[in-house]
Each structure stands twice: as structure tokens, then as C-alpha cells.
């Protein structure tokens, strides 16, 4: 009986040998994983396009895949780097508009942050407010800091693992994680000063 990994290896070999259609099996197998990963990093309306881009990049780089890590992990790295490239392009374009918070969302945030017991954090807050806050904070970070923030603080990856996924050095990720933390503190302070909120 063949394991999933050997199945992948067999399909990859076929694709490298020139059978383009064999790649469809990999697309079908890993599309839920790629969609989930991409969706976490980019706006919903961009998910389909970027997931497609991930598979195209994977196909183009398949000859360089040595099989040292599972294919799923290798593909995840491509997906994260594709999202990172998306944000780099987006930040460069003049169309990029930072998200803002509504008055209600600011009030909710202030109540949450001023609640010393932490009780409010445990409550099921409105999903909309949560998302607005996340978008607000991430939009004010650079693309690099955004990726580190998402992988290290929100996904919970270790520095070494985040570095492998992003293709950066561990030191670079650790320095960025530290800076990112400081920036986030500043963003929160500014938000509280601005709105009162």
C-alpha cells in the first residue's frame, strides 16, 4: 500500500517527466489546504487568484523540489511567500487604503482594553469588530512585519519554523518579531489617543 508521500513523489516524478496533466491530482488534493492558508493572509476577494498563483509557482518550481520535506510543507512555504509578495505589491500601489475603525468598534476596543479583569477578552465579541481590529493593526505594519506578526504571534510558529517558511534567517525573523511587537504597542497607543477612541 502506498503512503500519501510516496503518492506525491510518484505524481511529482510524472510531472517532471513532462506529464502536465498529472499535476491536476496535486491541485485537487492540496487546494483546501492552500485556500485555507491564503485566506488567512489576504483579503477574501483575492483568495482564488492567489491560490491559483501558488499552484502555478509550485509547478514552475517543481523541478527544484528535492523531497527533503513533505510536499505539503513545501507548498505552504510557496503559499506564504506568494501572500508576502501580494502585500509588497499592494503597499507599493497607490490604491492601497488602510482600513479604519468605526466609532462603535473603537468604543468596543477601549472597553476591552480598559477591562483589567480580562473578562471581556473571554467574551464572544462581535466577529466584525474582531476582524476590523485585525485589519486595522496589520495594515499599519510593513509587509515583512505583517508576515512575522501573522506567523509568529497569530499562528504561533517558532522563529525557526517561520524563518524556514519565509526563506529568511532566524535572526531576521527574531529581530522583526521584536520590532513588530513594539510597533503594535505604538499602534494601540495611537488608537487610544486618537479616538478617545
Amino acid at each position, binding site marked *: 500500500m502506498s503512503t500519501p508521500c510516496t503518492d506525491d513523489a510518484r505524481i511529482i516524478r510524472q510531472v517532471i517527466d513532462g506529464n*502536465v496533466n498529472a499535476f491536476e491530482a496535486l*491541485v*485537487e488534493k492540496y487546494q483546501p489546504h492552500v*485556500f*485555507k492558508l491564503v485566506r488567512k493572509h489576504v483579503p477574501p476577494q483575492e483568495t*482564488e487568484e492567489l491560490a491559483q498563483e501558488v499552484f502555478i509557482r509550485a509547478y514552475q518550481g517543481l*523541478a527544484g523540489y528535492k523531497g527533503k520535506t513533505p510536499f505539503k510543507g513545501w507548498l505552504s512555504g510557496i503559499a506564504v511567500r506568494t501572500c508576502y509578495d501580494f502585500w509588497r505589491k499592494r503597499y507599493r500601489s497607490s490604491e492601497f487604503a488602510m482600513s479604519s475603525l468605526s466609532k462603535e468598534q473603537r468604543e468596543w476596543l477601549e472597553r476591552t482594553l480598559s477591562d483589567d479583569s480580562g473578562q471581556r477578552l473571554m467574551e464572544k465579541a462581535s466577529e466584525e469588530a474582531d*476582524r476590523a481590529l485585525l485589519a486595522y493593526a496589520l495594515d499599519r505594519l510593513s509587509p515583512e512585519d505583517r508576515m512575522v506578526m501573522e506567523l509568529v504571534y*497569530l499562528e504561533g510558529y517558532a522563529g525557526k519554523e517561520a524563518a524556514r517558511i519565509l526563506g529568511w534567517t532566524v535572526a531576521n525573523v527574531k529581530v522583526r518579531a521584536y520590532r513588530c511587537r513594539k510597533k503594535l*504597542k505604538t499602534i494601540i497607543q495611537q488608537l487610544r489617543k486618537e479616538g478617545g477612541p
Partner: protein
Amino acid sequence: MNDFKRWIPILSRAYQQRGRDIPQPDARWQADTMRRIRQLGPLRQPTVSLELCNRFLWRFAGVAGAVACVLAIYAFSFDFHLEYEMTRVFMAAPPEFDLLRNIQIL
């Protein structure tokens, strides 16, 4: 508890929610992805030597033509002229020419 520590669980919760609202890829999406991949062509083309000749040899045709022209001009300007000169010397048959012929240089 500082602001950062307070904020992380909120952001993390929102981040995890994002991962749950995944648009389901349909057959059209998969077909479109495969169409774009097929447009890229196979990763490794079969490398038959004759095919390599067909693909690369014609690129040297221009250079080969230019070299042939230069050689033709060179031949017409020098070689034929020298032959002509030799014939003329032979016809005149000066003594030194006979000497060279006798010692079998010519």
C-alpha cells in the same frame, strides 16, 4: 497586563476566524488553474539530438553565411591571383625557376 498581551488574543481569534471562512473552490477554478499551467508547457522537454540540431543549428546560419562570403572574397583576392602569378612565371621560365624545379621544390 500590557496592551500587547491584551490585544494578541483578540487578533488571534479574528485571524483564526479568517481561516474558517474559506470560499470553496469550484470546478471552474480548478479547470482555469490547469489551463494556465498547461499553457506553461511540460517541465522537461525530451532532448533528442536531432531536435537539438533543429532548434539551435539554424541560429548559426547567418554567421556561417558571412564566414563563407569572407572566405570566398579572400580566395578570389589572393589564391587565384597567386596561381595566375605562378603561371606567368612558369611561362616566362626564368633560370631561377628551372633551378627550383630541378631541386624539386616546385
